[in-house]
C-alpha cells in the first residue's frame, strides 16, 4: 500500500501546486503540462529506434485540426481535441509510406522535410489555415462546473487542472502500451529487426503503429495548446520547439518512461524560473546548448540514471543487484 500512498501524495501535490505560484508561473505550468505529453509521446516513437524531426509539426496538425473544427463546424471543444489527435495519427500513417522506406539518419532528415512541407502548406493556403498569421480567436474550452469546483478557463489554474487530467489519462495509456507485449515488440523492432521479422513480427506495421500512436498523442497536446492560447500560426511549430523536445529527451534520457518527462520538467524549471529571475532568458538557446553538451559529456544516460542510482541504493541489500549495463 505505501506505493499507493505515494501516488495519492503526488496527486495532492500536483493539485496544490498552482496555488503557490504567481500568475505567470501558473501559465508556464500549463505549457509544461502540455509539453510533458508532447515529450512522452515522442518517447514512444524512439522505442522503435526512430528519431523524428517532424514531431512538433504533427503536434501542429492536431492544433490546426481542432481549431478549424471548432471554428468552421462548431464542434464541441473536447471532442475536437480528440479529433485533432485522430487527424495527427492519420497524417502520420500517410507519411509513413514514404518515410519508412528510410531508417536512422535518413528517416530523421526525411521527417524534417515532411514536417516543413506541412508547415509551408499552412503558410501558403490562407483559406482554411490563415497563412503566415495563422488562426486567431480559437474557441476556448467552455466553462463548466463539477459541483465543488467551478472551471473558469480564463484562469490558468482551471486549464491546468483540465489539461493535467487529460495528460494523466494519456500518460497512463502510453504507459500501458509500453508495458504490454506490444511495447516489447517495439523494443524488439528497435534492437534486432531481422530477428523480430524471423519471429513473425511485421516490422513495417509495428513501426507505423508506433509512429501513429506517438503522433496521435502529440496531436492531442497540440489541441490542448491551441484552445489555451487561442491563436496558432505555422511558426509556433517550427524547428526551434523541436530542438527543445530533443533536448528534453536527451537530457532526461530515453531508457525509461519517466526520463524525457524528467528532462522536460527540470529544464523548464531551470529555464522559466531560474533564468527569468536572473533576467537571462535571452540567453536560453546558449544555456540550453551548454546543458545539452554537459549532460552528454557527464551524464550520458540522462537524468534518469541519477534516479535509477538513488532508487537502487534505497532498495539496498535486497536480492542480487546487477549494475546497470554500460
Amino acid at each position, binding site marked *: 500500500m505505501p506505493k499507493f500512498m505515494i501516488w495519492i501524495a503526488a496527486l495532492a501535490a500536483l493539485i496544490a501546486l498552482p496555488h503557490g505560484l504567481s500568475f505567470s508561473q501558473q501559465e508556464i505550468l500549463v505549457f509544461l503540462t502540455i509539453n510533458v505529453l508532447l515529450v512522452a509521446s515522442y518517447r514512444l516513437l524512439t522505442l522503435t529506434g526512430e528519431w523524428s524531426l517532424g514531431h512538433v509539426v504533427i503536434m501542429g496538425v492536431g492544433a490546426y485540426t481542432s481549431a478549424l473544427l471548432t471554428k468552421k463546424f462548431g464542434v464541441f471543444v473536447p471532442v475536437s481535441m480528440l479529433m485533432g489527435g485522430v487527424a495527427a495519427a492519420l497524417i502520420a500513417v500517410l507519411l509513413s509510406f514514404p518515410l519508412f522506406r528510410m531508417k536512422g539518419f535518413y528517416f530523421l532528415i526525411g521527417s524534417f522535410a515532411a514536417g516543413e512541407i506541412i508547415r509551408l502548406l499552412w503558410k501558403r493556403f490562407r483559406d482554411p489555415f490563415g497563412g503566415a498569421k495563422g488562426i486567431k480567436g480559437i474557441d476556448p474550452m467552455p466553462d463548466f462546473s463539477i459541483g465543488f469546483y467551478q472551471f473558469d478557463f480564463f484562469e490558468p489554474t482551471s486549464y491546468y487542472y483540465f489539461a493535467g487530467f487529460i495528460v494523466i489519462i494519456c500518460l497512463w495509456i502510453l504507459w500501458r502500451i509500453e508495458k*504490454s507485449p506490444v511495447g516489447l515488440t517495439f*523494443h524488439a523492432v528497435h534492437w534486432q529487426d531481422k530477428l523480430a*521479422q*524471423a519471429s*513473425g513480427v511485421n516490422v513495417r506495421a509495428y513501426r507505423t503503429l508506433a509512429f501513429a500512436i506517438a503522433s496521435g498523442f502529440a496531436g492531442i497536446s497540440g489541441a490542448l495548446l491551441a484552445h489555451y492560447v487561442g491563436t496558432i500560426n505555422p511558426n509556433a511549430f517550427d524547428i526551434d520547439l523541436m530542438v527543445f523536445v530533443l533536448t528534453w529527451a536527451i537530457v532526461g534520457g530515453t531508457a525509461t518512461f519517466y526520463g524525457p518527462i524528467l528532462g522536460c520538467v527540470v529544464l523548464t524549471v531551470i529555464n522559466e524560473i531560474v533564468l527569468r529571475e536572473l533576467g537571462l532568458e535571452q540567453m536560453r538557446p546558449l544555456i540550453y546548448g551548454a546543458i545539452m553538451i554537459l549532460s552528454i559529456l557527464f551524464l550520458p544516460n540522462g537524468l534518469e540514471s541519477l534516479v535509477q542510482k538513488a532508487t537502487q541504493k534505497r532498495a539496498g541489500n535486497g536480492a542480487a543487484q546487477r549494475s546497470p549495463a554500460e
Partner: protein
Amino acid sequence: MTNFLEVKNLTMRFGGLTAVDSLSFKVEHGTIHGLIGPNGAGKTTTFNMISGFYTPTEGQVLLRGEDISGLHMHEVARRGVVRTFQHSTLFAELTVLENALVGTHMPFRPNIFAAIIGWDKEDRHGAEARAKEALEFFGLDGLLDEKAGDLSHGHQRALGMAVAYASHPDVILLDEPFTGMNPEETRQMMDLMERLKADGITILIVEHDMQAIMGLCDNITCMSFGKFLAEGGPTEIRNHPAVIEAYLGGARHVA
C-alpha cells in the same frame, strides 16, 4: 502426395554473379536435413531465399505445395518456417525471458486495445508459459532475468534456438549453429537438435562442421559453386567422389 518442403530450380543472381544456379532438393517431414558445401558454394544464399530474406531471381520454394518464394520474412515465419541467424543474433538489451516472449509473437499475437484495457491477461500468461517452456527445453530456465548480451556463447546459441522454438514452428532453419563452439558445446547442441526432431520439428541446417553434420543428419545435400552436387545419407555423402573432390580435390580451399 505433395512434398513437405521443396526447393525447385532456385536461382539467385547478384548482377553478373550467379550465386545459386537452379538448385533443387526436397526436405522430408520430421527429418534433419543438412546443406553442405565448400566456402562460397551458395549455402547461405539458398538459406536466405528459403527464409524470405532474399527474393529468388528464378525458381520456387514450395511448402506443402504452396509457393512461398518472394514472401516477406515475417510471412514465411507465419507459415511455420522459422530461421535462426549466424553468430549470436539476439535482443542483447532484453532479458532472456523477454527474448523468448518475442518468440511467442505468432502464437500469442499482441492486441493493443486489449493491452490498454487489460483484457489480455490470458494471452500474457499463455505467452509467458510458452516462453518458459521453450527456455526450459534448452536448459535456460535458471537465467530468466539475465540480459541476453551477458550470456556465454553456448547459452546465447541455445537462446537463439529457444526464441525460434517458442513460436511453435514446423521447420527450423539453422544457420551454422556450431560455429565457434568447442566439442563439448557441439555435443550438447546436437542433443538439443535430436530432441527438437523428436518433438516433430523438421530441421534444415547449413553447416561447415562435417563431424556434427555427419552424426546428426538423415539426409544431406551437397552443393558446390552454386550448383547441386550430390544428395544422400551421411555414409553415401562421405564416400561420394564428387563431394570428396569438391572438398579436397585440386587446390581449392577446404571448409
